[in-house]
């Protein structure tokens, strides 16, 4: 009986509030302290993980960026030299431009694809489960296997893609042998892998209250009207999160395609995106200090892109909001 009393009292206030009950005060206090201690123990692995593997590396990068370090000899302080070198590094500039171009095309493409196909497969019809599974399937394929398969698909002469194009009378481009062809090829192969966005759009769509949709239909709203004034405002917050997430994803996910399809970022550095150039400097040239400087610039660059995307889109979505 007394336990029931406690529980109702406790539900009213937050568990951390000072205990005021007179009866059984000490054991209860001990119990709450013990409970919090146990919670912190449970939290510990997770906290240790993010501190040791994310925050600590991110912070150490800053002092490292001011040194010359090859991982064998101790790091040597060189002041701002790495940043001066970056300023003059033609390929670094190119990799920034490549990355920006990639984000500008790939992110909207992947998102529109995810949304359009989620709209198409939102309704429950026969076989929709298998179709949804087929759409997500490319996303779970290992990057390296996916990249190798596409390197074959993009083969200018024997590749299935150009053969397919030839049967409908189009002579396909030389893909990975051509600078713009290579850039487009990597965007194309990665625009198959939008499973995450698709699943999130599908979830967002299924959360739209059907009463509102029915009401709109009764009021005579057309399909487009329904989409614009009900569907879009309802899923806008999800789309906003997806844009940010996909932008972050795009900043590093093109490493494997650039390495395999572009054979280390080629042809002629056309697919040398930021991760590729950081990797090359750090692990091929063993210029770890320089790579750390580049990482920090990338970091600020990421932050700027994400913040501006967020600001622009949240203002726009704000107008659509309820």
């Amino acid at each position, binding site marked *: 009986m007394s*336990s029931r009393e406690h529980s109702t009292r406790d539900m009213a206030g937050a568990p951390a509030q000072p205990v005021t009950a007179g009866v059984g005060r000490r054991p209860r206090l001990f119990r709450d302290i013990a*409970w919090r201690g146990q919670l912190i*123990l449970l939290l510990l692995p997770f906290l240790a993980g993010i501190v040791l593997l994310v925050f600590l590396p991110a912070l150490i990068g800053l002092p490292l960026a001011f040194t010359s370090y090859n991982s064998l000899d101790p790091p040597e302080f060189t002041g701002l030299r790495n940043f001066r070198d970056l300023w003059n590094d033609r390929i670094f500039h190119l990799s920034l431009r490549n990355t920006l171009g990639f984000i500008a095309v790939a992110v909207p493409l992947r998102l529109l694809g995810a949304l359009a196909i989620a709209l198409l497969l939102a309704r429950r019809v026969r076989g929709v489960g298998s179709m949804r599974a087929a759409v997500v399937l490319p996303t779970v*394929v290992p990057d390296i*296997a996916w990249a190798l398969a596409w390197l074959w*698909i993009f083969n200018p002469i024997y590749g299935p893609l150009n053969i397919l194009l030839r049967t409908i009378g189009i002579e396909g481009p030389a893909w990975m042998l051509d600078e713009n062809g290579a850039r487009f090829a990597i965007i194309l192969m990665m625009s198959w892998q939008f499973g995450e966005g698709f699943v*999130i759009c599908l979830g967002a769509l299924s959360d739209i209250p059907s009463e509102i949709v029915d009401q709109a239909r009764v009021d005579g709203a057309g399909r487009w009207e329904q989409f614009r004034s009900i569907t879009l405002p309802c899923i806008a917050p999800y789309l906003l999160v997806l844009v940010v997430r996909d932008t972050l994803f795009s900043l590093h996910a093109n490493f*494997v395609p650039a390495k395999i399809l572009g054979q280390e970022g080629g042809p002629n550095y056309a697919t040398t995106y930021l991760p590729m150039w*950081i990797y090359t400097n750090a692990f091929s040239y063993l210029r770890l200090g320089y790579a750390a400087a580049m990482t920090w610039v990338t970091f600020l660059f990421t932050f700027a892109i994400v913040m501006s995307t967020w600001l622009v889109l949240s203002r726009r979505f704000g107008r659509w909001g309820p």
Partner: protein
Amino acid sequence: MTRRTWTTGFRVTLGLVVAVTMVMPLVWMVTTSLREPGSVPPRRLEWIPDPVVWSNYRDVFDALPFATMAANSVIVTAIAVPLSVLCASWGGFAMSQLVPSTRRWLVALALVAAMIPTTATWVTRFVLFSQANLIDTWWPLILPALMGTSPLFALVYLWSFAGIPRDIFDAARLDGTSAFRTWATIAFPLVRPTTIAVTMLTFTMHWNNFTEPLIYIQSLDRQTLPFALSALFQLAPTDWPMLMAAAVMLTVPAVVVFLIGQRSFIESARGEGWLGN
């Protein structure tokens, strides 16, 4: 009525076209893996090679220690996936039970951690791991499991646990049940769909992981399976049947786990799955 049937028919047809387009690259991966090695590449689309040759799959094992690397992958994944699920659900459970002010801080911390791209930590993780003498061991591949592989999974668990009525946990606490027991006997069994989804996603992340083994592991006999593909590509860059055979063997486990787990999150009814609430 007829108009409705017609639009449904259109939807289904278009859905089929999309589905076929999506899996087409995988179909080509499989058909190419069955071609006779060294034969003239096709000039027309070829659905079933003539003759169908299975020897490419065996050749992969002769070209490099593929079996060892597969075993390494299995071991690393078998350690890292359960550890990820444990740490993510512990973290999520603790966050869901701590006071709101602490929780807000932890959520912000996890979100910031999730925002930092892995690329940004390559160089310094490498420096830290080499200082700790962990380069060329499996530690750099397994340790990220401490944070649930991606910090987002702890947040996914937090949201799932937050959906469970608080009084259940309060009652357990007042009965003197420890936090760990409450997690093990009440909280964790109640969020099965989340666990299935997180298991599936962390499996995919660890099984598919190519970049981290590439950076942190040097000896071939300690490498994991994705690296085998890139090594094979260096050895025989034009032997497409063999390369695709290796790609198929790497892809099959990822696809199987996905197909087993997918029902829980793609087909979950509204409000039930991890994306439902």
